[in-house]
């Protein structure tokens, strides 16, 4: 089956419904140069329908409209971020009890002697709620009362690439849609001039820079229109958005206008509905050529905002991307995913994780505060976390990959702030209490968006696939 077929039908249906309402539609003629129209048949107003998703009506009340997923790639140590383990400090240097590790999968420590490794930084109680957060996050500490910390998460893969794929798509097998694509497919976006799923990355300087495959924001078996679009800090911010040298704005516009008109003339001859879609897509593309630079131009941000994030922008830093995330959220982008690629601390974790934390701390906290002061936090879900945790055992003076326990935090609409949910054992090896799986996280995220994760499906290879595969439970206890 061609999966795009029912979608196209739906799209057309949507289009019909929206004609006359003009929600998110603009006239093609707005960009046509009248000079070029001489002799051309006057095409009527061409509306650009917006994809409004297959989940209509919503399955349940929508608590948030968008998600900002702050992906800490490389696997941040839960033991130096959100999961305080004094007992591990006491056992520093002693052999890791075999009862924990026997028969368990192990990554780079295969065959090595396993010894306990104390948390490398102290924790502090923050906010009115007294949430325990590692000292290396003084700024995030200031929003502790807005955070729901998930301490008992676990995942299914122990190496970066499959664990990332699992976090983003709910399976380690390639070719499945990422969560942003599912959301876009389910709900559409609230923008006509930007992609509905945007990815921003920053490298970081204190861990091995994690390779991130474009699979992580791919639409898999969903149609290509639901793919994430990466915004880059160097070169064209969106691939191919820049005009060719020697072609100014007006000339580009002339070319696009001519393409649109010739396409319209052809539609009259061949009666091909795809031409209408093509015309709409050129319209969107043309709009992106102005909306993207507008988005990236921070000259309208007051100094106090720039200071709050700790960036002047334009440098591809995580802080700068946090600010852009807010701007994207304001413009109606549905799923905004930020990557910081520097969390793989196999060695020298004490200094390196502190330095990496510094790269994300201020920007992240500023994002939460900024959304809040604009009244947008209520309609946004912010997620902070990586693909797995790290071993309580030493790998030299660092920690190895660990899939049995990891921590994340959530903030935003529908989420109880100032609480910590779940616990690991006393050494931080296994998630033991109120375990939250990646599927549970996805189910909860979809729930907040008004989607029943079991009902957002797509038939592929004879099966109705979904983001949560065959499991996933909404974590109701963290919901406000």
């Amino acid at each position, binding site marked *: *089956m*061609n*999966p795009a*077929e*029912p979608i196209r039908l739906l799209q057309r249906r949507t289009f019909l419904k929206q004609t006359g309402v003009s929600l998110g539609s603009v006239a093609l003629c707005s960009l046509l140069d009248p000079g*070029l129209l001489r002799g*051309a048949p006057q095409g009527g107003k061409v509306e650009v329908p917006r994809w409004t998703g*297959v989940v209509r009506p919503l399955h349940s009340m929508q608590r948030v409209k968008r998600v900002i997923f702050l992906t800490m790639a490389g696997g941040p140590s839960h033991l130096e971020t959100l999961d305080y383990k004094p007992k591990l400090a006491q056992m520093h240097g002693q052999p890791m009890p075999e009862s924990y590790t026997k028969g368990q999968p*192990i*990554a*780079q420590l*295969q065959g090595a002697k396993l010894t306990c490794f104390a948390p490398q930084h102290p924790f502090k109680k923050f906010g009115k709620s007294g949430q325990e957060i590692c000292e290396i996050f003084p700024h995030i500490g200031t929003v502790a009362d807005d955070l729901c910390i998930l301490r008992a998460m676990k995942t299914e893969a*122990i*190496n*970066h*690439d499959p664990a990332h794929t699992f976090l983003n798509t709910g399976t380690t097998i*390639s*070719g499945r849609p990422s969560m942003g694509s599912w959301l876009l497919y389910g709900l559409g976006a609230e923008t006509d001039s930007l992609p509905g799923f945007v990815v921003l*990355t920053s490298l970081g300087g204190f861990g091995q820079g994690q390779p*991130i*495959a*474009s*699979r992580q924001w*791919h639409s898999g*078996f969903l149609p*290509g*229109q639901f*793919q994430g679009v990466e915004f*880059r800090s*160097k*070169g*064209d911010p969106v*691939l*191919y958005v820049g005009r*060719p*040298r*020697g072609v*100014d704005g007006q*000339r580009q516009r*002339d*070319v696009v206008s001519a*393409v649109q*008109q010739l*396409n319209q*003339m052809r539609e009259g001859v*061949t009666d*091909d509905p*795809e031409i209408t879609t*093509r015309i709409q*897509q*050129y319209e*969107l*593309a043309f709009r*992106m*050529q102005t909306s993207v630079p507008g988005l990236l131009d921070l000259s309208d941000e007051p100094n106090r905002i720039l200071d709050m994030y700790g960036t002047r922008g334009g440098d591809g830093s995580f802080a700068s991307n946090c600010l852009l995330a807010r701007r994207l959220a304001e413009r109606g982008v549905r799923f905004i995913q930020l990557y910081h*690629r520097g969390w793989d601390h196999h060695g020298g974790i004490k200094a390196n994780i502190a330095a990496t934390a510094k790269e994300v701390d201020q920007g992240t906290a500023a994002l939460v505060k900024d959304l809040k002061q604009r009244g947008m936090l209520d309609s946004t879900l912010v997620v902070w976390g990586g693909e797995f945790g790290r071993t309580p055992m030493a790998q030299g003076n660092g920690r190895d990959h660990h899939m049995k326990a990891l921590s994340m935090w959530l903030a935003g609409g529908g989420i109880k702030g100032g609480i910590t949910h779940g616990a690991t054992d006393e050494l931080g090896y296994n998630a033991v209490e109120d375990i939250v799986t990646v599927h549970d996280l996805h189910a909860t995220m979809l729930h907040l968006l008004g989607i029943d994760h*079991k009902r957002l499906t*797509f038939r592929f*290879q*004879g099966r109705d696939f979904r983001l949560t595969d065959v499991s996933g439970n909404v974590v109701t206890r963290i919901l406000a």
Partner: protein
Amino acid sequence: MRERDWLCPVLAGLVSLSPLGLGGARLHGQEVKKHLIEFNRHIRPILSDNCFACHGPDKNQRKADLRLDSESDAFADRGGYSALVKGKPDTSELFKRITRSDKSGRMPPAKTGKHLTAQQVELIRQWIEQGAKYEKHWSLIPPQHRPVPKVAEGEQPRNVIDAFVRWRMEMRGLAPSPEADRRTLARRLSFDLVGLPPSPEQVEAFVKDASPQACATYVDRLLASKHYGERMAIYWLDVVRFADTNGIHGDNHREIAPYRDYVIDAFNNNKPFDRFVTEQLAGDLLPNPTNEQKIASGFNRLLMTTREGGAQPKEYLAKYSADRVRNTASIFLGYTMGCCECHDHKFDPLTQKDFYSFAAFFADIKDVAVGEQPMVRLPTPEQENEIRKIDSELASLRAQLDRPLPELDNAQARWEQEAKARRKDARDDWIILKPEKLASSGKATLAIQPDHSVLSTGKNPAQDVYTVTLRTDQKQLTGIRLEALSHPSFGNPGLARGNGNFVLTRFEVSAAKDGAKPQPVKIVSAAADYEQPGFPVVHAIDADPKTGWAVDGHAKRGDRMAVFAFDRPLPGGPGTVLVVRLRHESQYTQHNIGRFRLSLTSAAKPALSGKNALLAEVAQALGVETSKRTPQQKQTLTRYFRSIAPQLEPQRRQLAVLEKRKDDVVKAEPQTEISMAGPPRTIRILRRGNWLDDAGEIVEPNTPASLLPLGVKGRRADRLDLAKWMVSPDNPVVARVFVNRLWKLFFGQGIVKPLDDYGSQGAWPTHPDLLDWLAIEFRESGWDVKHLVKLMVLSETYRQTSKASEKLKQADPYNQWLARQGRFRLDAEMVRDNALAVSGLLVHKIGGRSVKPYQPAGYWAHLNFPIREWQKDSGEELYRRGVYTYWCRTFLHPSLVAFDAPSREECVVERPRSNTPQQALVLLNDPVYVEAARVLAERIVRHSGKDADARLRFAFRQVLQRSPQPTELKLLQGLVVQHLEQYRKDRAGAAELMKIGDFPVPKDLDVSELAAWTSVARVLLNLHETITRN
């Protein structure tokens, strides 16, 4: 979304005619008139979708111990009642449960989110009334010979395909659309068969060809084109997931391009499909496999692999195993066997044991669980020919050097006298020894060369200790000489394979006679002809094992030698054995001498010179009186003399040239990954797919019996058996799957709509009889792919116009009944190929390594281990077809991604066809399209006179193979006038535009004019029509 009804067209048709099912409505066509409800067509889809998950093949999920996919189970007595009772819906428990009024006991349970429509319930009722007859799933029944239907009215169909299609159309009151016009057909056939646009001349010739064979002639020409193989490869490479990188984590390069060329050649040479299948699955297991067959077996190595540190070998071997099952099943069987990795299939009769038994077929393939996969060098047929040619030239040249030459014999006699005299006078000659035994501690391969030097190849370890055993009859040994020599295989002009430099940390000699244990020989002094500052040769004989002799081999060229003098002469004589150790144990990795040679001397003072060195056997033969020499010794002397005789210098030079040429050819031989069989790994059923679980049953290679039993008894089956099973006449799926996918290429959708699932959850074929007929025809034609293609594209069904009347659109919105052609966007690669072709930039070369056209800088910034940059190619490699673009799995070229090319991480049998703003951005701004436009502009300006009208007509013919409409002309004339005026004022801008891309800028044409026409060319390359096959 559940667009289920279209999956079952007949059902949809029935329902639309009669909401209550079948009663009383006037229906078209015989099969519907009979009112016969067929299990496969009507009932199985309902049961599969709604019931099988709990009452199907998966024993672990089965509820109430009831299977509805099994006839015996459904009719079994369950203690006074049965799920089904023939003819009696009201006593059938199944029917009672699906019609129960209270929600709590109704099936399917509400919590599953599934429910039956009134129509579905009615169909089930009638089916039970009619006897509730079960059928094996259609794709499990081998294709049946079907009678070709007779068409009642009108013109008789052109071929068998048309007969089947027309028959189905008539049942529905549909009639075929008229044939498309020749221009459209010319374009359609060209894109479908070679993936390129036709030239205007080809179109003209086709339009004018009045012969009834015109189409066949046109098709034959396309099928004979080398580009046909490229077009088919675009499809096949998606299916088999061919890519240039390993896909996981660091996503590193792998050498596999020869496999791609194998596929292109196979389609071009019309390799029978059964051989194509066999060579890919098991080419390495065929008797005396050819290089081509070995390359084909690279198929089994196309999966994703990892090199990530910390990856556990056992886990990844399990992943690779599952990957091969999942994908091989998708590629050939069209069954979703991947589902059985963790549990029995929920819809199809496939078990978890089937999955692991299938995996066992591939257990013999040598894999590196974590790390770089092994590669081999395999010459192409051209290279094999070239080497054969050089070898024969070499042989004749060597024969020339060996043949008796009286004039040389005198010269040789004189030389012998001189050499003997010299040996008597000054015993300072070095005698070069051929080692008797060699060993490398680091597992390098040491090979003796004709000049008795020793070359290190294969693995290049970080450190190495060479142990060399020498045997000599020479007496009074006073010293030993070590030469370090360059070699072309190093890849550098130095003396070692690493960076060209070496560090010899210790040079040790021990000696023995007549089989005694060797005793260390004390070395008192050493001298070398070059010493790197800080690394004098005495460091090789001092007590410190870490210091050593080095020679700046990375920076200074030239062979080097060192001489080591013994503290007192060894007596030597017959039976003397010397063991020499060359230790390379410094902190500098891979600083091991790459080629060396050892010589002995009896000179009172060993000289640091090689002037009079002689190979040991030459020295020995010289020592024997002329009359007493054996023929062998005579030949040794003759050969040696001829290797130094000034009279033969020209021949020797020629020999050297030939040897160099051969060496160059060998070095250019492509490397590739192939299947290499070893002892099979143990394969167990992994419970819930858990690779840590070692308790599961051990299984042997076997095929799913529900499809077709393998039939191998009394021995372990192998991949060759699997291949035979695939192409067996009794295999129910393989031929159908391929035929159906081929059909999709030419009609836009399959006869079975989902191309990747022919099981219970797939769809009923719209034309089952046609599918069977084609499958049998394919097999009986000797698996002749071109025959099948020709049948399809010469049918009237194929030739119909793609334009549909309103009535037809209403009657058949998805074109299931084929009363018109499909219309679709070109595949990603062809979008590129088309722009290059119409601009004249396209390079028509077939095959070779993958190439790197322009790609935005920094696009690979997210790759690591190692960090790398896309190194753009230059020259003609920039203008190769998209099928040759370097396929990086994690970051595929963004222009290909924009047009839905898959990453090829998994088998993809059908690309989505999206229509996105990214596509517009690519066509507008990707330099390759801008360059194509400016080069097309140059052609327009050069070849079609001065008149704008004529130029536009030329441009339309090039790009769209048609003439422009007056309105189109007018619009573009306006654009030209406007932009010409602008670019005349902005010559700098025009010049900038014309510099995009590497193609030279014409010097003799007005840059403003070119820029204005570039605007026109850009418009044309961006048109929907340009990238659409109608």
